[in-house]
């Protein structure tokens, strides 16, 4: 894994519809917050990594040019990394590579999205092969197809899956109410979720995330710097990233190899053999409730095909064996380029006791995760309170 790397600070904007500020203003909000959290200044930073969705979805090309001032990139090395939904994890991992290699001591990572400026849904029409695949229904369609494949492959009872998905939605929305920065802050009941309008079967209105504006910033540091600057850093214990073929039909998406591969790699590095027992909290990338269920399985948190049973039994709910997405998760906030980094920031806040009203008591080891592409990329980063 190279040299030890720590998270020494995190910062986020208020997420939601943010047409009250310009895009650079929004980024500045997160950047200011992370410096306040870490108690350092830009002079301490060696390099900057930035990510968002691709230019076409942003509505402006090369947006790292547009954001350079807000990123404090003047006079610094700047890298842009993007892998669609998994961008937030990819930019974090880019920074970890940088520090772990010894080429930088402190790296600032910023992920952002203003979904209300570009039209991410419209431009997603250009992701599938536009000549060979007639694209309708966008991301919800593609991921709902995967959910239905999963239910069919494991012969999961439709009503049971629907109930488990509703529990995920209720838990996340309760989490969102605890999270002052979340986009969706509303109470929902299981019945409301189960009877909401079908968007793309099996996904219903309250099974799907919002389109959010927001940014997240995280500072990574070497062991020496982290110990000097930060009283209780969150240490990077392991990380993995895996990709798959472009054509979704080329592999079985019910047993999602890129999730499994990314998680197993991260667990190996972190020395984790029984993730459900060893982890204290997980921030799973869950833009759709059914995906939370699939991820619980593919991240190795429960046996394949059994996530609905575990969820119905409360294993992944607040107070359960492994609480998932106490921040409200992606279901309550999806500023895409920031989303995977928010998972990591929330995991780091948990293991350093800084998660406030979302705190899982005594959390020491946490998983963060993101997915991207059309059922194509998965990333996992594990953080812990001890080196």
């Amino acid at each position, binding site marked *: 894994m190279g040299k030890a790397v720590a998270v020494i600070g995190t910062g986020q904007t208020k997420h939601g519809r943010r047409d*009250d500020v310009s895009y650079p203003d929004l980024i500045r909000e997160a950047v200011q917050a992370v410096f306040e959290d870490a108690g350092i200044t830009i002079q301490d930073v060696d390099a900057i990594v930035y990510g968002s969705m691709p230019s076409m979805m942003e509505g402006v090309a090369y947006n790292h040019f547009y954001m350079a001032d807000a990123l404090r990139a003047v006079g610094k090395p700047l890298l842009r990394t993007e892998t669609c939904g998994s961008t937030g994890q990819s930019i974090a991992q880019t920074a970890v590579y940088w520090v772990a290699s010894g080429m930088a001591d402190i790296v600032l990572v910023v992920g952002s999205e203003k979904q209300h400026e570009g039209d991410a849904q419209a431009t997603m029409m250009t992701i599938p092969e536009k000549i060979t695949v*007639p694209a*309708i229904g966008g991301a*919800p369609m593609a991921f709902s197809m995967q959910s*239905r494949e999963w239910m*069919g492959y494991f012969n999961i009872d439709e009503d049971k899956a629907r109930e488990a998905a509703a529990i995920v939605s209720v838990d996340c929305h309760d989490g969102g109410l605890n999270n002052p920065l979340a986009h969706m802050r509303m109470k929902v009941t299981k019945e409301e979720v189960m009877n909401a309008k079908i*968007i*793309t079967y099996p996904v219903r209105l309250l099974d799907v995330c919002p389109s959010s504006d927001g940014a997240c910033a995280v500072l990574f540091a070497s062991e020496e710097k982290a110990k000097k600057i930060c009283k209780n850093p969150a240490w990077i214990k392991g990380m993995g990233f895996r990709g798959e073929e472009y*054509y979704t039909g080329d592999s079985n998406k019910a047993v999602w190899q890129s999730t499994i591969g990314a998680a197993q790699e991260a667990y190996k590095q972190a020395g984790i053999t029984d993730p459900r027992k060893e982890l204290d909290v997980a921030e799973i990338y869950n833009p759709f409730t059914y995906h939370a269920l699939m991820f619980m399985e593919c991240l190795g948190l429960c046996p394949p095909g059994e996530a609905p049973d575990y969820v119905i039994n409360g294993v992944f709910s607040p107070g359960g064996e492994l609480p998932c997405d106490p921040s409200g998760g992606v279901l309550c906030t999806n500023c895409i380029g920031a989303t995977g980094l928010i998972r990591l920031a929330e995991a780091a806040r948990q293991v350093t006791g800084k998660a406030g009203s979302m705190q899982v008591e005594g959390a020491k080891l946490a998983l963060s995760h993101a997915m991207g592409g059309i059922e194509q990329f998965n990333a996992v980063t594990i953080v812990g309170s001890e080196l």
Partner: protein
Amino acid sequence: MTEQYEKSRVLKGVLRVPYEMAVGPVWTRFFEGFKQKKILATKCNECGRTLVPARPFCPRCFKPMDEWMEVAQEGTIISWSYVNYTYFGMTQDMIPQVPVSVKLDGTDCGWLFGNIGGFDVNNFDLVNAKVKVGGRIKAVWRNEPEGNMLDIDHWEIIK
């Protein structure tokens, strides 16, 4: 400068940019097959998989896939959905739609392509009763195929 404005301005615009896409010899031939109501696949001689749509090279073996064959127009449903909201470029009269991923007989992959039709898909309960993962469907072509992705009008449920 002490002026305060009640609300920040939001400027709106629409971008239109030209684009052209070279589909290459393999997909050119694939869509020529559509004109004759044929579904063409290519086979990898390394791993032995037959993939549709036809591919220039095997994603796993990285070898050219130059063995062509026409495959069956019937297959098994791997997954389906029910699109019930309007998306960019769609109008209310276009929904609901029932997209499907099908594994054609004799091929080794799923193919996310087109919609199930041939009956009233407005009734979700009817769709949910008729469309099953593992169920069988076959391609129904439009009368005069033009060699593009709209040539398969819909997939019909068969016993």
